[in-house]
């Protein structure tokens, strides 16, 4: 079966971002960019399903600027077979991303679409669910175990109180949680090979999707700073402070 994996180019997770002085957003110039950690887990899961002989082809899709080709190449170095970049310099919000992915699903007819549960920049946690709704697919979000057998997917999900397992008809959407797997590193020969794998470049207009934002960002500000704390020398001093000064115990 064919699997589609969606990957997003985001600020590297180790970078502590700074808000721009004009409050229009965060500073992205000269900041290290990378594949969103949850998307990396999605790629790894597709590759493992391919290694098990369940998935036969992995198509990796990204929507974003020209530079997102780097993240598609990374995914191909990890084992994806070909790539599609829907190139746009504009801001594309989850609903528009979901519509573009739906159009690609209509063309490619995958049995499984794997996405990360959230992107670490916008922290939305929406795209997979929206795609599933638009395509009429079942969804297994926040997945920590995925099994595909007998024309169904069994997905164990991380929920507030513990775990839940659901059985989904295929085609289905799966969104990955942190504990689904541990992504591998790309080996140098595979990075070289990935350069030769096919990568189609399209635009939102090719799919007839209007990506005009439905949510307008009015301003972006730094969070309230916490006032500097103190180091106490002893446990006695700590307990005294908590009782008399902070009055929290």
């Amino acid at each position: 079966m064919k699997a589609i994996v969606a990957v997003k180019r985001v600020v590297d997770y180790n970078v502590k971002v700074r808000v721009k002085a004009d409050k229009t957003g965060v500073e992205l110039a000269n900041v290290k960019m990378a594949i969103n950690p949850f998307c990396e887990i999605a790629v790894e899961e597709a590759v493992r399903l391919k290694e098990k002989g369940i998935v036969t082809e992995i198509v990796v899709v990204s929507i974003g600027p020209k530079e997102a080709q780097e993240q598609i190449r990374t995914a191909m170095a990890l084992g994806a077979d070909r790539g599609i970049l829907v190139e746009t310099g504009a801001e594309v919000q989850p609903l528009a991303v979901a519509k573009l992915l739906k159009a690609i699903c209509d063309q490619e007819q995958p049995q499984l679409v794997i996405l990360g549960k959230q992107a670490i920049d916008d922290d939305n946690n929406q795209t997979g669910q929206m795609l599933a709704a638009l395509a009429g697919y079942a969804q297994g979000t926040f997945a920590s175990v995925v099994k595909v057998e007998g024309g169904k997917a069994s997905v164990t999900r991380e929920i507030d109180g513990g775990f839940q397992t659901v059985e989904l008809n295929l085609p289905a959407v799966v969104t990955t949680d942190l504990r689904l797997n541990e992504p591998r590193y790309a080996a140098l020969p595979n990075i070289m090979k990935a350069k030769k794998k096919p990568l189609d470049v399209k635009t939102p207009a090719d799919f007839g999707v209007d990506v005009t934002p439905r949510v307008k960002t009015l301003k972006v500000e730094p969070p309230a700073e916490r006032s500097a704390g103190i180091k106490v020398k002893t446990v006695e001093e700590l307990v005294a402070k908590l009782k008399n000064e902070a009055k929290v115990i």
Partner: protein
Amino acid sequence: MAVLVYAEHDNSSIKGATLNTVAAAQAIGGDIHVLVAGSNCQAAAAAAAQIAGVSKVLVADNAAYTNQLAENVSLLVADLGKAYSHILAPATTNGKNFAPRVAALLDVAQISEITKVISADTFERPIYAGNAIATVQALDAIKVLTVRATGFDAVAATGGSAAVEAVATVTDAGTSKFVAEELAKSDRPELTAAKIVVSGGRGMGNGDNFKILYSLADKLGAAVGASRAAVDAGFVPNDMQVGQTGKIVAPQLYVAVGISGAIQHLAGMKDSKVIVAINKDPEAPIFQVADYGLVGDLFDLVPQLEKLV
């Protein structure tokens, strides 16, 4: 203008996060209706009718909603939601699971984890692991929102007397099936609602060592949380993870033990009123947000602390 609030419940009682979500609905203004979708959920519906400020409770009591499968619930909420200006759900794993589906079915945007209502169409929400706060305006006619509980003070669970109305339509997508659930059992307070949280990280060394945190927590009436490193290492179950991708807490007191204070962990606890850090590394980033820091070995300090509180 009327606001539909999706109730988080276990069929017999209403979960706390619902009360914070009703508070967000009040900040928006208009009539507040609460939807209870479940099976044999009449007790939960009766409890919802008592929530202060709620004028109507809609009850969809059907086997199709037994396990709140997103495929079925989203069809129901999208169908009912057409009559409302706002649809709100708590930003729990359940709310995050179905709310984006509702928005997509209605062809509108969804705004995740709002922490403040500025006006009926303008909201604040954290982005980049809480390192920036965005003020956003929803341009669509229907606003679908998930609400971060720690951003709003809960309304009273009693004092209201809403009318209760049954919903006749049944929406069963037939594409997914519940198989099993494995819920972690704990007698301690719920992490997201606790007044005091004691959390352990990789520095705890192993799961057995968490015993010293549990006994400190029991003495303080606290919930116990953890960092991702502690969960990944198998010290504790995943639902104890605090952070960007785990639970968001804002207790009166947060005690971080053997936790370095990575960006992703701070995202889940830095709105706590008072933060205490116990760490043997004086340079650990957690000390930059801690009100009171104690440098030293947690295996000495935690038992001492337990004796003194």
